[in-house]
């Protein structure tokens, strides 16, 4: 090996030395867990529609039920194990959004219920709402301009 002089050389060398994540295994796990969570959502949706609910309502029920399940699993210290195994498989569905709200709420309980639970609840999920809602407002404005 040649002596390393510059930061760039070191960075290349470190990249070579650092093991990659087991991406194939991770993707496989993400695929089936993510697919399964969506499928559970689909069953809930079908059941609501079977009971005579219209689609938008049914879809809201799906969100609420999945969020509630994720909150319970987070509280029971199970969600982080699922997340460790499935990665994006549990992060990308709305369960991941719920987990990102519930986990800081629990963690920062020690800093009190107002600034701890209330304040830190959105440390991870806050940006999602900021960017999601802002984008929707911009799209709404564009829709106004073009008279959609």
């Amino acid at each position, binding site marked *: 090996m040649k002596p390393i002089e510059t930061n760039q050389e070191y960075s290349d060398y470190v990249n070579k030395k650092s093991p990659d994540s087991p991406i194939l295994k991770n993707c496989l796990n993400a*695929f089936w867990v993510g697919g399964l969570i969506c*499928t559970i959502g689909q069953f809930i949706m079908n059941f609501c529609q079977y009971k005579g609910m219209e689609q938008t309502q049914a*879809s809201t029920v799906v969100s609420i039920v999945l969020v509630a399940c994720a909150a319970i699993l987070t509280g029971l210290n199970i969600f982080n194990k699922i997340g460790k195994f499935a990665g994006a498989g549990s992060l*990308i569905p709305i369960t991941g959004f719920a987990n990102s709200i519930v986990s800081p709420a629990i963690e920062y309980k020690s800093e009190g219920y107002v600034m701890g639970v209330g304040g830190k609840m959105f440390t991870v999920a806050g940006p999602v709402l900021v960017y999601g809602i802002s984008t929707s407002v911009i799209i709404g404005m564009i829709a106004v301009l073009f008279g959609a």
Partner: protein
Amino acid sequence: MGFLQSIDWMQILRCFVVGGIICVIGQILIDKTKLTPARILVIYVTAGAILGGLGIYKYLIDFAGAGATVPLTGFGANLAKGAIEEVKTSGLLGAFVGGVKVSAGGIAAAVFFGYIASLLAKPKIKKQ
């Protein structure tokens, strides 16, 4: 029994596969780009809102159902769809009201259950 018979199993399969693929894309982003979970979620919700705004995402929902609505892209698309629809009935005001209105259920549920969970649960170490 009537409920089970009413299920379109091909639709369930499409839901599973599409939902799975959307997650796999996220996994590749995590492993290849070192993006934090918060950034991945932001990318997904924004991408979903844009695809929803362009009217593309609804085809995916028609095809895969919950496979497209449950991932966070679906949340984004729903925000955009809500804004556009509300604009039709109440103009510019709708741009501000519509998005949150249709996704209020999910957001309120996450806040509420998050609060309840924090009351009941105690932080624990990861045993991994």
